[in-house]
């Protein structure tokens, strides 16, 4: 196990210590101890930067289950390192923020930090694992820890609802992904992503390729809150704000993005991939930004904004796959989509993290997140306001912040669709830039609304639960660092380009690097008078107009009835499936033994008869039959007569006697077929059991004792006839197709020589196969003790009789 593995597992290992630290040092906020973990990891991972920016990768393997091909292989390349830095860097900031956000007196901090560290380790595992099964393991760890974190205030009903919803949706996706992983293993014979990438050309022709692609994408889409699986994210906002900032903006929701980026080299040659990833991305982008405008809760705005921005990154990753089809271009314009995706990924983590923290501050200092109660906070909270305005303007894509740069590149990427001439993109592809532009307008509107409604406008402090004031400095440090990054990346984007973006893009598009194209990341403000610039101007103009007239057109959101929203459908689907399963199980679990017997016998008949028919198994062969003697015929008639009497007898006592008669006739058969031991036993047993039946009959309650014959039911009759028929047919067939001699000759030859006995039946029972006898004795003993116990301890509650 190398240092790299220890780094990934460090959060898990340190999580074990948290409860002790919490109990042992009550005076110190537990977060201070936790802060060390992501800081150390961040510094550790920074050291990999020079390595990956030169295009090198580091792979360390630790054997876990080598016989199944499951090894804990850590693979650090540009993409993995970018995510690792995001996770640890923003992790440090979030932990710092949470120290001031969560009070050590009131909150169960040990729970919080254990979950958070578990999540951090899981995320690191996801982004740094090369083995798909290990990746899946960490993936589920993120789902579980996210579930725990969303439900952190578990006494609130909404928290539990949100936690359950996110759990159901992400685990559904996770399981689909596992299916995809298994399919990939079947195709490629390995769980290693890097080896699969090398095989991608042979994989694409495999019939399992498309199912694997769909299943993997399902996992990625549910995790990254893509349409229509985005509905869990707004409900996950019941989590504490540091959790929302960390999980639901910067890291976990990007796990799906990571997966898509990571699997791109395997799948991206397929047109289906391009269409699905880009198409769902752009729909998510539009739908998220459209819905964000109507929200009144600050965190809900940010949640929908996150959804929409994730859709943006996803659609860029999808379109970036087009670059693979143009190997020969000197200046590959499609590569810009991938570059923009990676760049925006970083930008989004910075500004969205700061915005969530800003909202947390507002919530913390005013007591509400409702945008209708807020307003005019600018003079009271100037620093928070500055953070908010930088974050929002970056989110809206305004210069001079980093959001502007990635927005421009995004538009460039979307416009490049016009020049694509594959997968029918030339016809429907026009929707991409149009939807992208409309979504950007809505993005502008909600970004402006977020700042202006909260901080500007008329102060209405009497509506607020608390008297607002500026946050303590400790709470402000993290968002300030993040918005500084927003500005720094805005002015000096090329700080990132060679160190982080280029290696990441090379990891997403390895085949281009192989074919000799260089990834040239050069981000600059001024493009000249390009269509992108005019689109941005249009976004600002239309967006400002829409914001000014917001009150007039906001009504359209209420036109969509609750039932037809995705949340409504989810809730209805959930309750419908619950009711449906309840009704289903009530329908067949009647509680009557006779119904279950009908099921059992019907299946018995259906399975056996159909097998007999399909396999053409019926055979009849009369060569081996013995001659029939006349007394056998008579006995058989008596047997049948008593059986018929059992069924059609008018009273129970007659049935009972008929059962006894049948038993005795069987004993006579044993005599005829020369089985004296059997006959003896059968006689005694029959006598005993008939008297037991009589005993039962004697103790019947008066009312039911005189019930006349059983009523006739056609279904029962049909089933019983069919069962009899089945057994008869099978007996005849098995007798007719006997394939070898029985082994009884051995017993006949050796019964005296080896076992010193004359009675062969008894010798078999106690010598040749004595084990069976032993356990039949055990059965009888158990039955006897059971009867004794039932009679003796009849009284309820174990009271003795």
């Amino acid at each position, binding site marked *: 196990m190398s240092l790299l593995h220890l780094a990934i597992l460090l959060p898990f290992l340190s999580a074990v210590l948290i409860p002790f630290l919490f109990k042992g040092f009550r005076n110190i906020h537990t977060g201070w101890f936790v802060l060390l973990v992501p800081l150390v990891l961040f510094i550790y991972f920074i050291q990999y930067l020079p390595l990956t920016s030169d295009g090198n990768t580091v792979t360390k393997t630790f054997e876990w289950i080598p016989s199944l091909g499951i090894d804990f292989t850590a693979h650090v390349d540009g993409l993995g390192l970018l995510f690792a830095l995001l996770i640890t860097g923003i992790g440090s900031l979030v932990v710092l923020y949470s120290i001031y956000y969560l009070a050590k007196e009131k909150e169960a901090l040990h729970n919080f930090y254990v979950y958070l560290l578990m999540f951090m380790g899981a995320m690191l595992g996801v982004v740094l694992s090369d083995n798909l099964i290990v990746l899946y393991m960490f993936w589920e760890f993120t789902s579980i820890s996210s579930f725990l974190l969303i439900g952190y205030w578990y006494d609130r009903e909404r928290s539990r609802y949100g936690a359950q919803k996110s759990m159901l949706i992400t685990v559904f996706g996770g399981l689909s992904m596992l299916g995809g992983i298994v399919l990939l293993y079947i195709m490629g014979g390995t769980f290693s992503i890097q080896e699969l990438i090398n095989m991608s050309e042979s994989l694409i022709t495999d019939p399992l390729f498309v199912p694997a692609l769909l299943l993997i994408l399902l996992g990625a889409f549910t995790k990254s809150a893509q349409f229509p699986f985005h509905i869990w994210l707004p409900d996950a906002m019941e989590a504490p704000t540091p959790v929302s900032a960390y999980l639901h903006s910067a890291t976990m929701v990007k796990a799906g993005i990571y997966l898509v980026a990571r699997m791109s080299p395997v799948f991206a040659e397929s047109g289906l991939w391009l269409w699905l990833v880009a198409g769902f991305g752009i729909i998510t982008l539009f739908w998220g930004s459209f819905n964000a405008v109507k929200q009144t809760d600050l965190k809900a705005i940010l949640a929908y904004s996150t959804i929409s921005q994730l859709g943006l990154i996803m659609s860029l990753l999808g379109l970036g796959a087009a670059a693979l089809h143009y190997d020969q271009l000197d200046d590959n314009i499609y590569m810009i989509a991938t570059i923009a995706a990676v760049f925006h990924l970083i930008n989004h983590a910075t500004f969205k993290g700061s915005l969530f923290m800003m909202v947390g501050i507002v919530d913390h200092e005013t007591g509400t997140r409702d945008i209708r109660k807020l307003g005019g906070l600018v003079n009271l909270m100037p620093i928070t306001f500055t953070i908010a305005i930088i974050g929002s303007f970056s989110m809206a894509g305004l210069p001079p912040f980093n959001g502007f740069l990635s927005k421009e590149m995004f538009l460039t990427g979307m416009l490049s669709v016009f020049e694509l001439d594959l997968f029918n993109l030339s016809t429907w592809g026009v929707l991409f830039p149009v939807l992208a532009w409309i979504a950007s307008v809505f993005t502008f509107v909600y970004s402006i609304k977020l700042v202006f409604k909260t901080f500007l406008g008329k102060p209405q402090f009497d509506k607020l639960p608390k008297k607002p004031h500026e946050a303590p400095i400790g709470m402000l440090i993290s968002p300030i660092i993040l918005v500084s990054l927003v500005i720094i990346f805005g002015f000096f984007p090329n700080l990132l380009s060679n160190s982080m973006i280029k290696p990441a893009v090379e990891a997403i598009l390895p085949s281009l690097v192989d074919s000799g194209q260089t990834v040239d990341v050069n981000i600059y403000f001024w493009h000249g008078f390009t269509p992108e610039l005019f689109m941005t101007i249009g976004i600002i103009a239309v967006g400002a107009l829409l914001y000014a007239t917001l009150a007039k057109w906001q009504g359209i959101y209420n036109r969509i009835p609750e039932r037809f929203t995705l949340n409504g459908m989810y809730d209805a689907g959930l309750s419908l499936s619950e009711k449906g399963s309840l009704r289903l199980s009530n329908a067949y679990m009647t509680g009557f033994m006779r119904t279950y017997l009908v099921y059992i016998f019907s299946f018995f008949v259906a399975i056996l008869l159909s097998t007999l028919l399909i396999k053409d198994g019926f055979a009849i062969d009369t060569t081996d039959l013995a001659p029939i003697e006349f*007394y056998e015929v*008579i006995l058989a008639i008596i047997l049948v007569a008593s059986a018929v009497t059992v069924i059609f007898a008018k009273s129970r006592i007659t049935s009972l006697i008929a059962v006894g008669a049948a038993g005795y006739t069987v004993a*006579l058969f044993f005599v*005829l077929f020369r089985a*004296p031991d059997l006959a*003896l036993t059968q*006689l005694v047993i029959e006598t005993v059991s008939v*008297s037991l039946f009589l005993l039962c009959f004697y103790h019947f309650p008066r009312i039911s004792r005189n019930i006349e014959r059983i009523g006739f039911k056609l279904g029962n009759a049909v089933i019983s006839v069919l069962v009899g028929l089945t057994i008869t047919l099978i007996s005849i067939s098995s007798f007719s197709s006997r394939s070898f001699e029985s082994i009884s000759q051995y017993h006949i030859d050796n019964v005296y020589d080896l076992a010193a006995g004359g009675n062969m039946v008894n010798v078999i029972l106690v010598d040749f196969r004595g084990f069976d006898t032993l356990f039949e004795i055990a059965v009888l003993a158990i039955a006897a003790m059971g009867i004794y116990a039932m009679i003796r301890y009849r009284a309820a509650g174990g009271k003795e009789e």
Partner: protein
Amino acid sequence: MLTTILYISLAVITLSMLGVLYRVIKGPTAPDRIIALDALGISLISIIAIFSALLRTSAFLEVILLFGILAFLGTVAFSKYLEKGVIIQRDRNE
């Protein structure tokens, strides 16, 4: 010759069994049925004995003995039941 006689006696016993069986089914009172069942058991004993002779084996003599015991026990148990209402009494001193 012997075989023929055996078959004939078998048929006769079967006929007598049928008669007894009629009494078992029809028998107006319980004692009628019990006596009939006892007789049926004895007839069965003879059938088994004749079969042993037919099959030329002595392996079924135990069955005959057992049948005798069972028939006796059953009849006694039934009679006790009719007499006292129970078969096995709890209180021995009564």
